[in-house]
């Protein structure tokens, strides 16, 4: 059975050109970037090129690139690192639909006496810019709002958020793991002080990400040691992964994005038309190019997932993190989906390899599965 993978928001494969580029750095160019000999210096030179490439991609004129183990570490470093280094200000602002690694970091800080404002979102997942503006006070050190939501694909207006943060003189961090290389991000134009990105959502390897920060920002490191990464993140650099990260930046082309948008819109139209109990979650405009999220009345998402999996199709219920716990999905909650319906949600995310044929097979199977489960449900009207 040929697998159809429609869970690219969870992770992507490493594409061949990225893998090929990495290979030498395991086998031949294995030097430690801190070493003064030729092997070390060669590796260091290549890593510096990746730093420059990331800065170029983000139009980062006055920033440092700190390599980390991925999105979770970058987000932890951005928030904890910043508040620990700036003890006089004890208030941060985030949204209610941030990834767990932001939400749980915020909860952790609350227990230590910090104050957190959780911004509401509307039914499409957008924050209210006026509420943001009103929430900023003189104790506020940081506003952290994700760019593209990992579950419902909402793209926040980074430019407007950045403008408000600049006017109010607070730092602005964004988690752009889902949107990096898929959507326009310009650190200068959007006034972004800190940004989280990673490689395994863009056809690069797992275990590598970066926090890009404006020069002059102080952070208390989470990992102390040899003083790598400007002293913000000690630990020998993961050179092969960094090389792969650098190569992965070029993988998604403008044509790929256009193709994913067309397929996404086609699927939304087809599913809403052919499954009367379905509802689209998230926005129709300003939506991440590869994200789809649906709610099906009267049935459970996990059952849809399981049967699709048995038939060779990989999707997700809500976010991959929440499917193994019984906690209700916080994003569904925040966009006003009642708890008794929040179990009927699935997320589909497209990749550059996804074909129309695959999406048609998926839709055909989905229709049958939803019908079977709906017929079985006692709640069907």
């Amino acid at each position, binding site marked *: 059975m040929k697998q159809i993978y429609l869970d690219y928001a969870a992770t992507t494969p490493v594409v061949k050109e990225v893998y090929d580029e990495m290979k030498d750095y395991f086998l031949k160019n294995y030097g430690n970037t801190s070493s003064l000999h030729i092997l070390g210096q060669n590796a260091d030179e290549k890593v510096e090129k990746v730093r420059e490439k990331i800065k170029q991609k983000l139009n980062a004129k006055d920033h440092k690139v700190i390599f980390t183990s991925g999105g979770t570490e970058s987000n932890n470093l951005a928030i904890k690192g910043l508040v620990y280094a700036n003890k006089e200000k004890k208030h941060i602002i985030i949204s209610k639909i941030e990834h767990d690694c932001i939400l749980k970091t915020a909860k952790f800080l609350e227990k230590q006496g910090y104050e957190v404002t959780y911004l509401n979102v509307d039914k499409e997942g957008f924050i209210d810019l006026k509420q943001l503006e009103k929430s900023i006070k003189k104790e506020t050190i940081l506003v952290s709002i994700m760019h593209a939501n990992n579950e419902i694909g909402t793209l926040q207006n980074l430019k407007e958020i950045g403008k408000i943060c600049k006017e109010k003189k607070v730092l602005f961090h964004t988690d752009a793991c889902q949107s990096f290389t898929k959507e326009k991000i310009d650190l200068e134009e959007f006034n972004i002080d800190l940004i989280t990105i990673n490689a395994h959502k863009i056809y690069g390897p797992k275990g590598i990400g970066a926090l890009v920060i404006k020069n002059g920002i102080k952070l208390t490191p989470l990992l102390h040691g040899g003083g790598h990464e400007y002293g913000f993140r000690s630990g020998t650099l993961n050179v092969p992964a960094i090389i792969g990260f650098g190569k992965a930046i070029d993988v998604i082309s403008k044509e790929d994005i256009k193709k994913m948008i067309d397929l996404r819109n086609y699927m939304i139209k087809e599913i809403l038309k052919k499954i009367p109990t379905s509802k689209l979650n998230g926005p129709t405009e300003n939506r991440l190019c590869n994200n789809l999220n649906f709610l099906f009345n009267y049935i*459970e998402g996990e059952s849809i997932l399981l049967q699709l999996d048995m038939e060779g199709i990989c999707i997700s219920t809500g976010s991959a993190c929440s499917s193994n716990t*019984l906690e209700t999905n916080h994003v569904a909650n925040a966009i006003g989906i009642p708890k008794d319906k929040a179990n009927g949600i699935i997320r589909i995310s497209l990749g550059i390899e996804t074909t129309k044929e695959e999406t048609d097979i998926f839709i055909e199977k989905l229709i049958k599965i939803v019908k079977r489960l709906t017929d079985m449900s006692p*709640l069907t009207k």
Partner: protein
Amino acid sequence: MQNIKYSKKVKEHFLHPHNMGKIKNADGIGKLGNPACGDVMYIYLKIIKKNEKEIIKDIKFQTMGCAAAISTSSMITDIVKGKTLEEAFKITNKDVAKELDGLPPIKMHCSNLAADVLKEAIKDYYNKQKNRKIKYEKTACYKCCDSKKEMD
């Protein structure tokens, strides 16, 4: 994080459930579950009397839920069909899970409710036969998903 791995039997019952549907003019109906937890189960009974004994002649279910909820529903209908009410009443949620070669631990709590629902249906049947009351303790959880969980 735990992985949800279902047994072969669970998957079979999930894909091809037995006795799915409704019984018109059922003699007893049990309805339990909480949509917020993602599991709701109805069981319908048709009872006949034979030599002073009440026997489950037919049983059907309707379930909204995960594979654990669906497969336990299907399994319990197989277990009790043709049994006396007394015998059927003794079946526990644990028995059902065992017959399915086990359920993932996370599913034992909310989704393993078929035996409770069956008892509810038997209770309903007894209630309709005047002056016959019956009591039992539910063993699945029906409220845990309502309470807000504190995040670590």
